[in-house]
C-alpha cells in the first residue's frame, strides 16, 4: 500500500502518457470503449466475478484495471447509474490504506482458495450477482476484503506496465489529460519478474479459455461477455509481455499476426461473397429449409458444369470455325439452299432453328471436313471429335468425384435404431430463419412424432397388413397403367409427326408440328401430379414416399426420352435412305452438268455453280441436333410458363381474390403452391441428359443450357420467394444430394449410350459436317495418328490397342476394383464393430456413474444423519467461524464437505426450515 502511495506522486504523468499509448495502440477498441465501459459499469462488478475459470487472480487484474479507468471518468461524467457501486468503490479507496495489513493476510487465503473456486465459478456467477445487488452481506464484505488485496496487486501490475509503455509511446492524447488527477488510485511500480510471470500465465490462461469457450455449458450471454473480456485482456496485456528489447518486436509481431488474421478473415468473407448466388440461396434456405435450398445448390453446381462444357465447345469448336473456317456461302454445306432462301430469315423459321440458324456454327452440318483450318493449322475435325468425347468424359469425372466426396461426408447413423432419439435431437433444421417455416417445422416434427408413435404401435399390431399390401400393389398397378398410357401417347404422336413430316410440314398447323414436344412436356408436368395423388394410397413414410415418387417420375421421363430417341432413330434411317437416293442423283446431276455445259474442249475452266444451287443430302446429324434444340427450347418454355401461370398467377389470384371470396383461399382450397423439389430436380437432370445427348450434333446446346440455367436461377429464386409457401413437410435434405448425383450418373450413362451408338455405328453424311467422306466418325483419330504423329507413335498405339494388351489391362482393372471394394467392405465391418464397442462402453460408463451416484447419495445420507446428531454443537461453531475467518469462507459453500462444518440449507436432502429450527432452539433455551 505504501508503495502505491509513493508511486502516485512520482508517476502520475507517466500514467497518463501510458494511457495515451493504450489509446493509440488499441485505438479501435477504445472507440467503442466508452460505450462498453459505461455498460459494464452499469452491470457492476458482479458480472466480472462470475466470469470464468481463468483464475480469480487474473480476473481481478483485469477488473482492477478497468476500475481504474472507470474511476478516472467517474468525476467527469455525472451518471445516475451504478451509484451504489461507486460509493462502494470510494469506500474501498478510503479503507485501502487502513486495511492493508489485514488484507495481505487475506490475500494468502484467497490464493489458496482460488483453485477450489475455479471449479465452482460457474455456479457461483449467478449467486454472486444477486448478492452484489443485495445490500452488504457479511460474507460478501469479507470476500471483498480479500479481493481488494488482489486488486491492489493487479493495480500495481497494471500501472507498472504503463510505466514501461511510456518509453514506447510518443503521442499524447488531449482527452486523457483531464483525467490526470483521477489516476491517483493507480499506483504504478516496477514489475517484478514473478509478477510478469503471473501476467504471462494469466494471458496464457485467457488464451486457453477463448479456445475452450465453445464447449462450456454456460448460457450464451455469459459466453459472449467472457469472450469479450478475455479478448480485451489479451489485447491489453499481450503486447507488454516481452522482455527488454524484444518487447517492441514482440508487440509488433503480435500486431502483425492480428492484422494477418483479420486479413485472412476478410479474405474468407470476400471469397464467400464471390460465390455466385450464395446470399440468395442462403435467404431461400432460411425461409424454406434445406431441401429447397439443396435444389438451388444443385442448380448452381449444374450451372458450373455447363459453363465448362460451354467453354470447351465454344472455345475449341465454334469460335475457331467461325473465325478461321471457310466463310458463309463458300460451300454448299455453308449456304442456305435456293428453295429456302426466301423464308430463311423468317422468325418462325429461325425459331424452329431452320434457315440461317441451321446453316451456321450452331449445328453439325455447317462444319467443313478440311483437316486443318486457318494460319494456326487448327485440326478442326479432330478438335470436334475430341471435344465431343471430352465433354462426356469430363461430366463423368465430375459427377463421380462429387459422389465420392459426398459419400465421405454422409454415412453417419443408421435410421432404424434409436428412431426416437434421432427425432428428438436431430430433427430441427437450424438454418431456418423464418417464423412461418419454423412453425411448419415445429408442426412437422410433432406430427412426425405422432406418426412414429403410431407406427411403433402399428408395427406391434399389424393386423391390416394385407390391406396395405393390396393398396400398394394397386398403386403400383395404376402407376404402371399411367406410364404405359403416356408411353403409348408419345409413340402415337411421334408416328403421327413422321406422317406429317412425309406430307411436308407446311401443310399442318403449328399445333400439329409441335405436337411431340407439347405432349411430352405436358405429360412430364401432369403425370407426376397424378403419381403424387396415387402415392397417398400407399401410406408410406414421407421419405420413402419421396423416393418412390422420384423413381416413378424418373421412369416416366426416361420412357419419354427413349420413345423420343427411338423415333429419332427411325427418322435417321429414313434420312439415310434419302441420302442414298440423293447421292445417286448427284452423280447423274454432275454428269449431266459437265456433259451439258462443256461440250467441246475439256481445257476450259470448270463451270462455277452457286453453292446454293447444288443439290445436297438431308444431313441427319443436323436434324438430330435441331430436334434436341427444339426439345430444350420447348421444355424451357413449358417450365417458365408453368412457373408463371401455376405459381405466380395462382398466387396473385389467391392473394387478391381472398378479399371477396366466400371461403379462405389462402388457407383452404387453392392456397399457394409449394416448391416441388423432386419435380424440379428431375427436370434439371433430364434437361442435362438431353444436353449430353445432343451436344455432339448441336454445339450450341451447352450455350443454350447455360442461358437457361442462368435465367431459371433468377426466375425460380424470385418465384420461390414471391409466390411459394414453405412446405408443410419440411424435411432435411442432408442425405439427398448423393441421391440426385446417383440419378444424374444414371442419366449420364443412359444419355451417352445412344450418342455413342450413333457415333460408332452410323456412317456420317457424305456432304456435311467435319467427318464427311469418312466411313465412321472416329476414323479421324486414326487419320491424325497416321499423318500428324511420327510413325513409331502410331505403331505403339496400334500395339497398345491390340486386344492382347487391352484385355489383360481390363482384367487388372476389374481385379483392382474388386480388391478395393472388398477392403472397403472390411473397413465398414470394422466400423460397425467399433460402434458396437463404443455403445457397450457407454453402457458400462452409465452403470458405473449410476453406482457412483448411488454411493454418493448414501454418503450424503450418512452425512445428514451425522449432522442432525451434531446439530446442536455445530451451529454455534458455525457462527463463530464466520465471524472470525471471514476471508477463508467461500461465499457460497457448494460441496458437501462444507456440510461437515454445518453450512445450513445447502445440503440437498435437508430443507432449510429444519436447520433454522435447530438453530433457534438452543438460543431460545439460552434466553
Amino acid at each position, binding site marked *: 500500500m505504501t508503495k502505491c502511495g509513493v508511486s502516485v506522486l512520482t508517476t502520475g504523468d507517466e500514467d497518463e502518457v501510458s494511457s495515451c499509448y493504450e489509446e493509440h495502440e488499441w485505438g479501435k477498441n477504445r472507440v467503442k470503449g466508452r460505450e462498453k465501459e459505461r455498460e459494464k459499469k452499469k452491470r457492476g462488478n458482479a458480472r466480472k466475478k462470475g466470469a470464468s475459470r481463468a483464475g480469480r487472480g487474473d480476473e481481478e487484474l483485469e477488473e482492477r484495471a478497468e476500475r481504474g479507468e472507470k474511476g478516472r471518468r467517474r468525476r467527469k461524467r455525472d451518471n445516475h447509474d451504478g451509484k451504489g457501486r461507486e460509493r462502494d468503490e470510494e469506500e474501498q479507496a478510503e479503507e485501502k490504506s487502513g486495511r492493508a495489513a489485514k488484507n495481505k493476510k487475506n490475500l494468502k487465503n484467497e490464493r489458496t482458495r482460488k483453485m477450489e473456486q475455479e471449479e465452482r465459478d460457474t455456479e457461483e456467477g449467478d449467486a454472486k450477482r444477486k448478492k452484489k445487488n443485495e445490500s452488504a452481506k457479511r460474507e460478501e464484505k469479507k470476500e471483498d476484503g480479500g479481493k481488494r488485496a488482489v486488486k491492489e496487486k493487479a493495480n500495481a501490475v497494471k500501472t507498472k506496465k504503463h510505466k514501461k509503455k511510456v518509453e514506447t509511446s510518443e503521442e499524447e492524447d488531449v482527452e486523457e489529460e483531464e483525467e490526470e488527477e483521477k489516476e491517483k488510485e493507480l499506483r504504478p511500480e516496477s514489475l517484478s519478474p514473478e509478477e510478469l510471470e503471473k501476467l504471462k500465465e494469466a494471458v496464457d490462461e485467457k488464451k486457453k479459455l477463448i479456445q475452450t469457450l465453445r464447449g462450456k455449458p454456460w448460457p450464451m450471454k455469459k459466453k459472449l461477455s467472457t469472450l469479450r473480456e478475455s479478448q480485451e485482456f489479451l489485447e491489453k496485456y499481450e503486447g507488454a509481455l516481452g522482455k527488454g528489447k524484444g518487447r517492441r518486436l514482440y508487440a509488433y509481431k503480435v500486431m502483425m499476426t492480428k492484422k494477418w488474421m483479420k486479413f485472412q478473415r476478410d479474405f474468407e468473407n470476400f471469397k464467400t461473397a464471390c460465390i455466385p448466388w450464395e446470399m440468395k440461396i442462403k435467404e431461400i434456405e432460411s425461409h424454406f429449409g434445406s431441401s429447397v435450398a439443396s435444389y438451388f445448390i444443385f442448380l448452381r453446381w449444374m450451372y458450373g458444369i455447363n459453363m465448362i462444357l460451354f467453354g470447351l465447345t465454344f472455345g475449341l469448336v465454334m469460335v475457331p470455325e467461325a473465325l478461321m473456317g471457310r466463310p458463309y456461302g463458300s460451300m454448299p454445306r455453308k449456304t442456305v439452299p435456293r428453295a429456302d432462301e426466301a423464308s430463311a430469315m423468317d422468325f418462325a423459321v429461325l425459331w424452329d432453328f431452320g434457315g440461317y440458324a441451321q446453316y451456321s456454327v450452331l449445328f453439325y452440318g455447317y462444319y467443313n471436313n478440311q483437316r486443318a483450318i486457318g494460319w494456326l493449322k487448327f485440326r478442326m475435325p479432330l478438335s470436334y471429335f475430341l471435344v465431343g468425347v471430352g465433354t462426356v468424359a469430363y461430366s463423368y469425372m465430375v459427377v463421380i468425384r462429387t459422389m465420392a466426396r459426398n459419400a465421405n461426408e454422409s454415412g453417419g447413423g443408421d435410421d432404424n435404431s434409436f428412431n426416437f432419439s434421432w427425432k428428438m435431437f436431430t430433427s430441427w433444421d437450424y438454418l431456418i430463419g423464418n417464423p412461418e417455416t419454423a412453425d411448419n417445422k415445429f408442426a412437422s416434427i410433432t406430427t412426425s412424432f405422432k406418426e412414429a408413435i403410431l407406427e411403433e404401435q402399428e408395427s406391434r399390431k399389424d393386423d391390416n397388413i394385407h390391406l396395405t399390401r393390396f393398396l400398394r400393389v394397386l398403386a403400383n398397378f395404376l402407376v404402371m397403367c399411367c406410364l404405359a398410357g403416356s408411353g403409348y401417347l408419345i409413340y402415337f404422336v411421334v408416328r403421327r409427326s413422321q406422317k406429317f413430316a412425309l406430307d411436308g410440314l407446311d401443310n399442318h398447323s403449328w399445333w*400439329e408440328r409441335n405436337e411431340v414436344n407439347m*405432349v411430352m412436356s405436358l*405429360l412430364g*408436368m401432369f*403425370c407426376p401430379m397424378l403419381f403424387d*395423388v396415387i402415392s397417398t394410397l400407399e401410406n408410406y413414410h414421407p421419405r420413402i414416399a419421396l423416393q418412390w415418387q422420384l423413381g416413378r417420375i424418373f421412369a416416366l421421363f426416361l420412357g419419354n426420352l427413349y420413345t423420343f430417341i427411338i423415333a429419332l432413330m427411325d427418322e435417321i434411317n429414313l434420312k439415310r435412305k434419302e441420302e442414298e437416293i440423293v447421292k445417286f442423283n448427284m452423280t447423274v446431276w454432275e454428269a449431266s452438268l459437265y456433259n451439258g455445259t462443256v461440250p467441246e474442249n475439256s481445257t476450259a475452266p470448270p463451270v462455277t455453280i452457286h453453292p446454293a444451287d447444288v443439290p445436297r443430302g438431308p444431313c441427319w446429324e443436323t436434324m438430330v441436333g435441331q430436334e434436341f434444340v427444339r426439345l430444350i427450347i420447348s421444355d424451357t418454355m413449358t417450365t417458365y410458363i408453368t412457373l408463371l401461370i401455376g405459381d405466380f398467377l395462382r398466387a396473385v389470384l389467391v392473394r387478391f381474390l381472398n378479399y371477396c371470396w366466400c*371461403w*379462405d383461399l389462402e*388457407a383452404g382450397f387453392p392456397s399457394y403452391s409449394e416448391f416441388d423439389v423432386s419435380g424440379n430436380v428431375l427436370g434439371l437432370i433430364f434437361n442435362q441428359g438431353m444436353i449430353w445427348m445432343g451436344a455432339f450434333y448441336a454445339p450450341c446446346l451447352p450455350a443454350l443450357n447455360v442461358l437457361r440455367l442462368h435465367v431459371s436461377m433468377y426466375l425460380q429464386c424470385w418465384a420461390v420467394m414471391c409466390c411459394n409457401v414453405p412446405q408443410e413437410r419440411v424435411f432435411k435434405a442432408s442425405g439427398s444430394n448423393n441421391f440426385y448425383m446417383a440419378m444424374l450418373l444414371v442419366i449420364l450413362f443412359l444419355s451417352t449410350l445412344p450418342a455413342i451408338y450413333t457415333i460408332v455405328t452410323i456412317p456420317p453424311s457424305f456432304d456435311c459436317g467435319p467427318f464427311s467422306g469418312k466411313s465412321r466418325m472416329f476414323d479421324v483419330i486414326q487419320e491424325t495418328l497416321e499423318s500428324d504423329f511420327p510413325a513409331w507413335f502410331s505403331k505403339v498405339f496400334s500395339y497398345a490397342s491390340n486386344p492382347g494388351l487391352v484385355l489383360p489391362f481390363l482384367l487388372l482393372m476389374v481385379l483392382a476394383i474388386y480388391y478395393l471394394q472388398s477392403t472397403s467392405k472390411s473397413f465398414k465391418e470394422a466400423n460397425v464393430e467399433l460402434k458396437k464397442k463404443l455403445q457397450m462402453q457407454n453402457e458400462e460408463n452409465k452403470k458405473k456413474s449410476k453406482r457412483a451416484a448411488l454411493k454418493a447419495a448414501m454418503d450424503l445420507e450418512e452425512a445428514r444423519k451425522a449432522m442432525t446428531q451434531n446439530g446442536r454443537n455445530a451451529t454455534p461453531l458455525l457462527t463463530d467461524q464466520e465471524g472470525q475467518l471471514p476471508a477463508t469462507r467461500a461465499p457460497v459453500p457448494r460441496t458437501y464437505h462444507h456440510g461437515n462444518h454445518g453450512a445450513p440449507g445447502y445440503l440437498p436432502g435437508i430443507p432449510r426450515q429444519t436447520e433454522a429450527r435447530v438453530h433457534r432452539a438452543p438460543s431460545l433455551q439460552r434466553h
Partner: protein
Amino acid sequence: MVSPAIALAFLPLVVTLIIRYRYYFVLFYRAFLVRVWQDCATGLSREERAFQYVLTNATPGDPDSILEAFDQWCSKVEFISNIGPKKGKILDRLLMEQSPMTVLELGAHCGYSAVRMARCLPLGARLYSVEMDQRNATIAEKVIRLAGFDDDTVELIVSPSDEVIPRLRSDYGLETVDFVFMDHWKKCYLPDLQLLEGSGLLGKGSMILADNVLFPGAPNFLRYVRKSGLYEWRIHQATLEYIRGIRDGMAELVYQGIK
C-alpha cells in the same frame, strides 16, 4: 385446331384434380345439389326436414339421443353444418374444464350446438343463444325445448349478432361472458369479436371458441387474433363435420385483457 393428342395429355391433370379434391365435390353434392333437390321435392326447408327426422327418431328430454339423431341425419341423409360429434367432443371438454356460468352462442342454427352446450353446463349456468333467422330460430327453440331445457337455462335471442352484443349488458343484465361460441357467418367473426371487446363483456380468462376457422375459414379473424396480443390462442385441428378429408379447425382464444 388443337390436336386430340394434346387434349389427351391433359387427362392426367383432370384425373389428379378430381382425385385430390374429391371431398369438395362430395361436399358440393351433399350440401348443395341434394338440398336444392329436396327443397323442390318436399317444399320444406332443410332445417324443417331435419327437425322432422329428429322428432320421429329421438327420445324427447334426452339431449344425447337428440344429438345422435341429428348426427345420423346429417351424415346419412343430408348435410347441415352443425358442429358435429368430433369437434363437439372438444367443445364438451372445454366446457367441462371451464364450467362457465354465462355462455353466449352466436349462430344457433337449428339448436344442435345449443343442446350440446347446455347439457355440459354446470348447475345454474345460463346460455344465451343468438340466431338471426326467424325460421331457424323457431326450429332451434323447438329442438331446445324438446331436449328439456327451459327458459332459465337457454335463452334464445332472435336478432343479428351485431345488434345483440351491444345490448347484452343493458337488456339482459350481463356483466361478463365466460364462454363465447361462434358459429355464425364467418365474415362476422371479426366484427363481433371487436364488439365483444368494446362492450367490456370479456373478462380475464373468458374463452372464445370459433368454429370453422380453416374451412370455410375466417382469415381476417385469425390474423387479428394473432396480432392483437389480447389473447392466448390455439387452433384445434379437426376435419369438417360429417365429411372426411376436409381439414378444418376451431380457434380457442382465452382473453388475457390489456396488460
